[in-house]
């Protein structure tokens, strides 16, 4: 039985080192083939017709003119006359043609008659939604330190207790905050190129779930998963929206089967925004009470929002966020609007919960005339997720990197430069990041070459590189002596990349496989070295006796003793099984420094600091990249991104890159990333990093804008319109 462990910090050769990503050159030069780049001989291009109405019923579909379009080969209806459509963009029919031009022209000739129905889009107006019968209960919970007596009615007791606590509070804040629905806006839209080979489906799919989507195809096409080969070497963004084959992927497979030709079916840009995934909105009314030191004792909130046509919204389970006072009551209401259903978006629920909670804590600081940093620090006693001391240490580091104390001024009391004011804000976040299931097959060949096989995927975060670091470090080899194979469903099963579970999963499976293989290799060569297998170690490309490095074999010599067949092992990790290699629960702190032009409402990022814990860091370089990306993504939803639904028609009017605003490099300001890895956290093992750093930017930036203006701009994104509207309401324009 091999005992799995990570080497100490000072004993590693590659683990914990800032290794360049292995596929960086391929990506930078365009030789990396993404799904969108896959073109097969004789392929058909499929384009789908989207419904132009937010809510309607299909009366009739006439495809005659489309079929007659030169180049059009096949038309498949995805919806039938009589179907009710509940959001704009839903795909009605697919046209497959010899060229993209023919497919688009054919699509334009499909004649669909609709009966339009009433639309509802206003997810911010709870009363309007109730009146329209568009609300459902989203759950709630109340906790008080004092327990009701046996005789008490629980609801009445809580009502009275809350009243009492607010009565005792030295400071009471009543606030309104919110965050609009946004989309995933993957640079590479959802889609696939598929073909059939002797009854087997080969699917080049843009997916976060290589090992899991073969099942999805198989189920809908009456196959077994073994009949499906899903391939994804590179992906142009997923963020939680690409876990399934989707009905358009299944349609591509069906059309390919019927026509006998490969089919390439990628969503158009507007379809990507309308259908490819979105994040629920959230709006909250909060009342909180704090003692004379600003330590919050009672939280009372109601929030609402939409996850789309089927309702859903931000879970009440993460309200209030991280800082969770001893007494609280929270209530959630979900609203159904005419928009496509939400999908998981990087750290589901957390960014919204953070933006709806930690803004209220900052308003408490503003009302007290206190430094926000001090108020957050004083409330760490109630911190959830990570240990309070982790947040506290990270706050100190972040404050130093931001030069917080020197820059701080009370809310709205900073210096003005003409019409421009500046401010600071901060927020805290947590995430689980438990390792996902993962299996790795490792082969050591008699010629000394090493290959690993794992059905995971690299979302662009450096998974391929991390796998190679773990295997090579464990075997005492260099990176170029190891070949990592991922991105195919025929490889050993590995979990979907969602919820920051990949780095833990693949580190587990690859470390285990490499340790297992090494022990077997030691068994084979122990005799030649006249030693026990247990006394051997693999260092610098040699197998040697611990303590007597002069007695050694080169890696190649050692492997030549394997005989004719490669040494093969497969090792697995099951999610939730205890392991010294991985763990869960991280904390992070972020701070923002902004300027606001009070005449135009334009907010500019000056500086952004992110301090992040993630247990043992396999690759600090790709980890930092991950956090830079998260900071930019956070700046995007804090200042720019917004799904705009037309109240009259339900149309998603800004579903194009020209209108769906994203920051450019010039908009991000300076971003400072600090990895927090003291021994106390490193010894917990590997923990996922994907989600956590994208959680805090909304609250941190909102707080910075509030600190600058002395006025809360309640709802994200903080566009010029929103800033000016808030200033006007405060009588400041």
């Amino acid at each position, binding site marked *: 039985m091999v005992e799995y462990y990570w080497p100490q910090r000072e004993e590693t050769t590659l683990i914990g080192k800032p290794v360049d990503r292995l596929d960086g050159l391929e990506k930078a030069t365009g030789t990396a083939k993404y799904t969108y780049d896959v073109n097969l001989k004789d392929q058909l291009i499929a384009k789908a017709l989207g419904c132009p109405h937010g809510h309607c019923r299909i009366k009739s579909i006439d495809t005659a003119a489309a079929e007659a379009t030169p180049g059009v080969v096949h038309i498949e209806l995805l919806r039938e006359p009589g179907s009710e459509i509940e959001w704009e963009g839903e795909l009605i029919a697919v046209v497959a043609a010899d060229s993209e*031009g023919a497919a*688009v*022209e054919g699509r334009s000739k499909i004649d669909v008659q609709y009966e339009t129905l009433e639309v509802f889009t206003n997810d911010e107006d709870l009363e309007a939604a109730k009146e329209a019968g568009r609300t459902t209960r989203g759950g709630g919970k109340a906790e008080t330190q004092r327990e009701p007596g046996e005789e008490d009615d629980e609801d009445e007791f809580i009502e009275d207790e809350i009243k009492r606590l607010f009565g005792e509070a030295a400071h009471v804040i009543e606030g309104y905050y919110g965050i609009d629905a946004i989309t995933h806006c993957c640079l590479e839209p959802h889609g696939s190129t598929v073909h059939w080979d002797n009854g087997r489906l080969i699917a080049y799919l843009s997916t976060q779930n290589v090992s899991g989507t073969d099942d999805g195809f198989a189920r809908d096409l009456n196959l077994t998963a073994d009949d499906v080969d899903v391939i994804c070497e590179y992906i142009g963004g997923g963020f939680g929206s690409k876990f399934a084959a989707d009905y358009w992927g299944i349609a591509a497979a069906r059309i390919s089967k019927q026509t006998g030709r490969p089919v390439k079916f990628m969503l158009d840009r507007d379809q990507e925004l309308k259908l490819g995934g979105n994040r629920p909105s959230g709006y909250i009314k909060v009342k909180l009470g704090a003692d004379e030191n600003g330590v919050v004792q009672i939280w009372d909130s109601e929030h609402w929002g939409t996850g789309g046509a089927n309702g859903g919204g931000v879970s009440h389970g993460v309200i209030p966020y991280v800082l969770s006072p001893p007494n609280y009551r929270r209530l959630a209401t979900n609203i159904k609007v005419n928009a496509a259903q939400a999908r998981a978006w990087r750290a589901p629920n957390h960014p919204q919960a953070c933006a709806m909670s930690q803004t209220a804590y900052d308003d408490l600081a503003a009302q007290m005339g206190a430094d926000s940093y001090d108020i957050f620090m004083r409330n760490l006693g109630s911190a959830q997720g990570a240990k309070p001391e982790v947040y506290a240490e990270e706050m100190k580091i972040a404050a130093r990197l931001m030069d917080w104390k020197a820059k701080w001024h009370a809310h709205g009391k900073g210096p003005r430069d003409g019409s421009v004011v500046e401010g600071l804000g901060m927020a805290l976040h947590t995430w689980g990041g438990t390792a996902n299931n993962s299996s790795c097959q490792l082969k050591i060949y008699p010629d000394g070459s090493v290959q690993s096989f794992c059905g995971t995927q690299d979302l662009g975060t450096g998974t391929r590189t991390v796998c190679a670091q773990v295997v090579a470090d464990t075997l005492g080899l260099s990176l170029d002596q190891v070949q990592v194979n991922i991105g195919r469903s025929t490889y050993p099963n590995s979990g979907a990349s969602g919820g920051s579970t990949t780095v833990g999963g693949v580190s587990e499976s690859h470390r285990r496989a490499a340790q297992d293989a090494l022990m077997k290799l030691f068994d084979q060569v122990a005799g030649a070295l006249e030693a026990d297998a247990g006394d051997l170690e693999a260092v610098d490309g040699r197998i040697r006796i611990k303590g007597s490095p002069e007695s050694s074999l080169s890696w190649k010599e050692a492997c030549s003793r394997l005989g004719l067949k490669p040494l093969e092992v497969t090792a697995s990790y099951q999610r939730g099984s205890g392991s010294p290699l991985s763990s869960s629960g991280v904390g992070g702190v972020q701070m923002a420094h902004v300027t606001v032009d009070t005449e*135009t409402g*334009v907010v500019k990022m000056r500086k952004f600091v992110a301090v992040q814990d993630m247990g043992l860091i396999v690759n600090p370089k790709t980890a930092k990249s991950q956090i830079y990306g998260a900071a930019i993504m956070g700046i995007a939803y804090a*200042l720019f991104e917004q799904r705009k639904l037309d*109240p009259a028609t339900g149309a998603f009017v800004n579903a194009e890159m020209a209108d769906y*605003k994203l920051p450019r490099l*010039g908009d991000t300001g300076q971003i400072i990333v600090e990895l927090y890895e003291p021994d106390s956290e490193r010894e917990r093992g590997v923990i996922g990093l994907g989600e956590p750093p994208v959680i805090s930017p909304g609250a941190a930036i909102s707080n910075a804008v509030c600190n600058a203006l002395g006025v809360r701009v309640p709802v994200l994104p903080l566009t010029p319109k929103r800033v*000016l509207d808030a200033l006007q309401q405060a009588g400041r324009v």
Partner: protein
Amino acid sequence: MKSFEFAAPRTEAELLRLLSPIPGHTEVLAGGTDLVGLMKKMVVTPERVVNLMEVPSMRGITIRPDGAISIGATTALDEVLEHPYLASYSALLDALRGINSMQLQAQGTLGGEICQRPQCWFFRSGQGLLADRAGLVSQGQNEMQAILDNAGPAKFVSGSRTAPAIAVLNAEVRVIGPGEADEQWLPVAALFRTPRKEGERETVLLPNQVVTHIVLPPVGNLGSATYEVRQSEGPDYPLASAAAALRLEGGRVREARVTLGMVAPRPYASQEAKRALLGKSVSEETAVAAGLAAIRDAKPLAHNGYKVQLAKVAVKRAILEAASRAASSQPAVVA
């Protein structure tokens, strides 16, 4: 996109012969940064695309005997930006710099920039320019729509970022067609109109007329500036903009032009702002007053009231910068 015929004339006469008098049958192609996207979305579906880029007479920057600068319509934006003849035409340079994209500046042309179609999501989703005929805009998501000259069914905002600057610099455009011998010179402001009837476009050009040149008179001691309110540092269109050109004598404004962009279906020349400036010395107060005058007739829709404030500030800031340049009579320092 729909299949189309591609024509590449070498002369203006050849070009005019290739254009159809029927609206929508032919489209002219310059840099293609706008037209190609519209064709892919099938918002425009020409039978024939006529490429202007191989007509040599339409390209390049020359100086005329009277000192005026003639810019061929297919001259690339970055060429305009870097040309020594144009170093004093500050309002135009401000607008070109604001595009913030090397790609658009290298590929886009000045004629194309002026004649680009509106950045209006109703228009670009196929609802046409008069999307409000059925109340679609008034009742719809109208936060990017017009606040001035918006009483009719056209509520989009003019797409050109350089037209306000070119207008205050008193430029004229040369238009040819429909006949091979037809040629006219129009002040830039007269090129644009707010469409009222079906079939009207946002310029007065007939389907078989083309802008070939933009001619800027000598700048003299005119000070000019464009101020765009941009949310981002990227190539996004501004939320509101204003160009101002001022000539000062003895510290007082003797000549003034102020044109707003992104607020009306055409570049919006403000006579009110001009009147507020003439005869005055320029200070923060006069600039603020001119800004207020410029938006006096604004009629915001349900969701675009903020644009009134932005237009007012843009006018103020453009005037202050133009005045400072007029006072020094120095060209703007190119950043």
